[in-house]
């Protein structure tokens, strides 16, 4: 909302500099986004063209004699519209004006133009920086005071307000004036609403009825006859333009002007086009159509409130008028409407037509019906002033909603204290509310009965009054204290804590966290082979991008996209993980939001280095990360061969803690990598589900195990086992022996020297007792026991 200070000053004195006023408004909740000044024309004054004649040496230039009130000067002017008797904007030598060629401000020098000295310049809008119109000079009104500095006459400051949805009142200049008055200790001068009623009685001019009062609580109207439609006077056009509206003609401009002044949208109908001079406010009938002012023919339905004549809709109430009854050059009689419409219906209709107008911006927020007759009278008065004609006697005022007056609210000083945390004396509270235009009555020494003024629609509760008081006094006046109420007992949410631990452990394992968009495309899901048209994931009805509409059921696609996007940056290593939610639909409920941590590892194992080779990250890197993480969490898990359509069939394992399936680790299926155009091969992958992981966490604290005081004996054991026997099985059997405290696999071999279909596994075994130093015999015996049991169970033999 653009508020010209020159307009604002009509209703309230402003002594503060614009920047300070903007600050006060902003602090009180009416944010001023930008303060723009119009002006900055030192050396420019209102001048008068005394005489205009031809330039002796150029046909298209004229030579003018200009008075500045104190001086008379010869000036060359190139504009076709200059004429004697005009008040103009005169820039004297030394003034700072825009050069129309360079677009820069320059100091005006005396110039010799085709042999004649020009002692200044008659300015166009372009030279003053007022607009792009360079066709002619700016002609000022006749009453412009000769010699007045132009800054004083034309200069202005525009406050651009960022109005929040509750502060409907600040969409009007008077509303802002009331706010300014309260914040600066001034009073508001409301406009006079009187006008002569010289026409016939209004009842004989028009017949109005409200058929659907639920959608139209108040309808007021006046009639002006014998007027002349023409462009508005300059002051009116200028105010509209500075407030951001385009002038149309005097009648329409007045309706807009009064809307900006009082906030009440109005509509003017050409009365001669209103059939039978009858107006019915009713819901549209099936089949009703209307060609609206924006050139669109609209189908109406019974949810739409129309302003109809005896036969057809003439306008959509509170939204837009119809083309047929539009005010045009030939209009001589005007029916002026100022009405209240139901805010909900107004908003719905505006949304259904996608028609958001200056009227709906206001009506949808619920204007008070008290505004309608005030604005009607003001607009009638102004139309008479700028377009002539005669107003009918009286106005139409249909007020079916008058039984719903503005609420009267109780404000107690104890409530103020309870909410704000400070004591306020009642007289001070009363003064603040009155400065905002609220009517206050003292019910008792600590209670006020308060009614909001007609321009405020946002006051419904005692707390609203609390805000009014404290925002005008300033939030700075409230003390600053620390919470002194008891701290509630609470336990950390386990899954949130776990996610944090998982993130930390993965970062410690060299993984980079990413966060990606939870909406994915069907193509993404197809690429990771998780698109099932029978059971589609949830989707968004109004996605920003038509493809990216599905709530992801997996993190895989996001991770692979991130990997693909980064592979241009080199050969890796790429170690990415995301800890986020996937969404699984459930009937009649919100989806399950499953917490998952997943990662991909690809490319070189280390940064390019002269010290180490460039072997690639693979399955065992992903597994190592998972093992590290589980160890960090104190969870022991087994890895069991498995399969997954997205993963390499021979390189995939389920991670199990007892019955709990914690996740998957594997290498991606080469076909999947290919679909994402991922160059590094293989791509190792893991995925862990936090809910079962939470269940698998050890209960209670870790227990300290005493460190043996006796030395450990270390023995090597090289076994030959059938290739089908998983290392994990052998490993576990070794670890279970009572004297074995640690098992380290140091070699896996198959090939020459051992039988086909077998492989060799070589371990360091750490043997230790907590009771005594083991002898060589103890160690040999343990090895013998292990060997024979391994031989029995998995067919292992000692490698010789």
């Amino acid at each position, binding site marked *: 909302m653009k508020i010209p200070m020159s307009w604002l000053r009509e209703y309230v004195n402003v002594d503060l500099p614009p920047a300070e006023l903007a600050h006060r408004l902003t*602090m*009180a*909740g009416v944010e001023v986004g930008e303060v723009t000044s119009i002006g900055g024309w030192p050396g420019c004054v209102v001048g008068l063209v005394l005489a205009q004649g031809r330039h002796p040496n150029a046909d298209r230039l004229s030579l003018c004699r200009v008075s500045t009130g104190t001086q008379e000067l010869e000036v060359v002017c190139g504009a076709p519209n200059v004429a004697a008797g005009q008040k103009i904007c005169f820039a004297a030598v030394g003034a700072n004006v825009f050069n129309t060629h360079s677009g820069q401000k320059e100091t005006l020098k005396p110039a010799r133009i085709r042999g004649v000295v020009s002692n200044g310049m008659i300015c166009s809008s372009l030279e003053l920086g007022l607009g792009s119109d360079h066709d002619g000079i700016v002609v000022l009104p006749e009453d412009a005071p000769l010699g007045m500095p132009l800054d004083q006459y034309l200069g202005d400051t525009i406050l651009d307000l960022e109005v929040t*949805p*509750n502060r409907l009142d600040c969409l009007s200049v008077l509303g802002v004036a009331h706010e300014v008055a309260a914040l600066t200790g001034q009073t508001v001068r409301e406009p006079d609403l009187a006008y002569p009623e010289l026409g016939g009685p209004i009842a004989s001019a028009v017949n109005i009825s409200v058929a659907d009062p639920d959608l139209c609580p108040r309808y007021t109207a006046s009639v002006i006859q014998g007027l002349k439609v023409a462009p508005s006077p300059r002051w009116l056009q200028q105010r509209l333009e500075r407030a951001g509206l385009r002038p149309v003609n005097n009648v329409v401009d007045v309706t807009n002007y009064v809307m900006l002044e009082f906030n009440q949208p109005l509509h003017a109908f050409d009365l001669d086009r209103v059939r039978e001079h009858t107006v019915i406010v009713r819901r549209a009938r099936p089949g009703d159509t209307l060609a609206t002012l924006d050139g669109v023919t609209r189908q109406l339905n019974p949810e739409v409130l129309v302003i109809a004549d005896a036969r057809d809709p003439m306008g959509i109430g509170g939204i837009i008028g119809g083309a047929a009854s539009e005010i045009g050059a030939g209009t001589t009689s005007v029916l002026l409407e100022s009405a209240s419409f139901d805010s*909900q219906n107004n*908003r719905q209709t505006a949304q259904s037509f996608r028609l958001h107008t200056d009227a709906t911006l206001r009506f*949808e927020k619920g204007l008070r019906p008290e505004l309608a007759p005030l604005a009607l009278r003001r607009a009638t008065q102004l139309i008479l002033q700028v377009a002539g004609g005669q107003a009918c006697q009286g106005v139409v005022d249909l007020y079916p909603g008058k039984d719903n007056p503005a609420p009267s609210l109780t404000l107690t000083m104890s409530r103020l204290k*309870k*909410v704000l945390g*400070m004591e306020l004396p009642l007289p001070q509270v009363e003064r603040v509310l009155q400065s905002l235009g609220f009517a206050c009555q003292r019910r008792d020494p600590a209670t006020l009965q308060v009614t909001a003024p007609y321009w405020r629609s946002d006051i419904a*509760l005692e*707390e*609203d009054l609390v*805000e009014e008081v*404290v*925002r005008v006094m300033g*939030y*700075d006046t*409230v003390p600053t*204290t*620390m*919470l*002194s*109420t*008891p*701290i*509630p007992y*609470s*336990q*950390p949410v386990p899954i*949130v804590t776990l996610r944090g631990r998982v*993130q930390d452990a*993965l*970062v*410690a*394992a*060299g993984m*980079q*966290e*990413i*966060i990606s968009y*939870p909406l994915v495309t069907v193509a993404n899901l197809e690429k990771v082979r998780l698109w099932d048209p029978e059971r589609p994931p949830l*989707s*968004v*009805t*109004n*996605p*920003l991008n038509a493809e990216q509409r599905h*709530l992801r059921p997996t993190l895989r696609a996001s991770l692979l996209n991130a990997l693909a996007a980064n592979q241009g*940056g080199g050969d890796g*290593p790429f*170690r990415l993980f995301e800890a986020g*939610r996937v*969404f699984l639909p459930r009937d009649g409920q919100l*989806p399950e*939001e499953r917490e998952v941590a997943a990662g991909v590892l690809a490319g070189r194992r*280390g*940064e*390019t280095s002269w010290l180490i080779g460039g072997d690639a990250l693979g399955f065992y890197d992903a597994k190592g990360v998972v093992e590290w993480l589980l160890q960090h969490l104190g969870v022991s898990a087994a890895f069991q061969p498995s399969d997954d359509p997205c993963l390499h069939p021979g390189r995939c394992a389920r991670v199990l803690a007892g019955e709990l399936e914690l996740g998957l680790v594997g290498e991606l299926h080469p076909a999947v990598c290919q679909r994402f155009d991922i160059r590094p091969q293989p791509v190792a992958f893991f995925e862990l589900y936090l809910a079962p992981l939470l269940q698998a966490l050890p209960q209670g604290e870790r227990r300290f195990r005493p460190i043996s005081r006796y030395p450990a004996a270390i023995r090597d054991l090289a076994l030959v086992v059938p290739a089908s026997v998983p290392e994990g099985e052998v490993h576990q059997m070794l670890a279970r022996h009572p004297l074995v405290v640690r098992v380290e696999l140091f070699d896996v071999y198959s090939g020459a020297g051992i039988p086909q279909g077998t492989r060799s596994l070589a371990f360091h075994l750490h043997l230790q007792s907590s009771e005594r130093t083991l002898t060589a015999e103890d160690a040999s015996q343990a090895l013998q026991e292990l060997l024979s049991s391994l031989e029995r169970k998995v067919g292992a033999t000692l490698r010789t």
Partner: protein
Amino acid sequence: MAYLGRRGHLTLVLRNLAQLDMEQRRTAGAQANQAKRTLEEALARRTQELEDARLAMSATQERLDVTLPGYPVTGGRLHPTTRIIREVCEAFVAMGFSVVEGPEVEWDRYNFELLNIPKGHPARDMWNTLWVDYQDPAGQQSMLLRTHTSPMQARVMESQQPPVRVIVPGKVYRYEATDATHEWHFHQVEGLAVDDGITFADLKGTLYEFARRMFGSERKVRFRCDYFPFVEPGVDMSIDCFACGGKGSGCRICRDSGWIEIMGAGMVHPKVLAGVGYDTAKYTGFAFGLGPERIAMLKYGIDDIRHFYANDLRFLRQF
């Protein structure tokens, strides 16, 4: 060897001492021992010198080019948003708040209605919503991607009586075209404190303390009136601009104002309290919300919010 060995001159001298008389023996012995010590010390010194020279020689030969890069250690990092959310939560946990989270897919009821934003309310325009394709059999409920973390206010209060003191980090979504300062997917941290006796003054104190912890103890804060339908009075908290030191003029970060808005807040609206069945005569509270991306952008000087979720390692590795 010629002097100190078993057949060395000195050894022989010492052996021959026996053949001399007492007086001569004492003198000669003392002289010989003195000579022996001198020689031994000289020898030790020389040995050390030789050893030092050898080490010096070999050290010279074993010299490393210390400018060659060391073994690469690949470290991982948290996403900057995660880091900021943690910092924010830590600051509030220290003030007695506990961290809870809520669903990202929500009902209209929690995202709007219980927050005093009924259907058809013009304030709904403040949150452009992404709606989830869901047909409610009863035709009552609309499903959406939460537009803010505020629904958790209602969920927490529905599930417990006061005192309440929680902080809610999480993702939020808006139907909004992206540009340097707008994303359709970002994060919020919501806070809520409700009890008998919580005041606007406490709101100011708590948020001021947070600003000091997060941005440094010399930070100034400013509270001004603002509007959110679920609070009354509503608050916007700004901190003095750290780019221009609060001077404002010509500063791009604070748009000449000297202040940077970092948080919306306010006293919980009585309709919100009543909506979850709290006694509004007894209980008051405050709520607040902030955007971790915005804080990260300010803290680290990031000029475009679209960097956050593009997952470019050249961006992520900087934090």
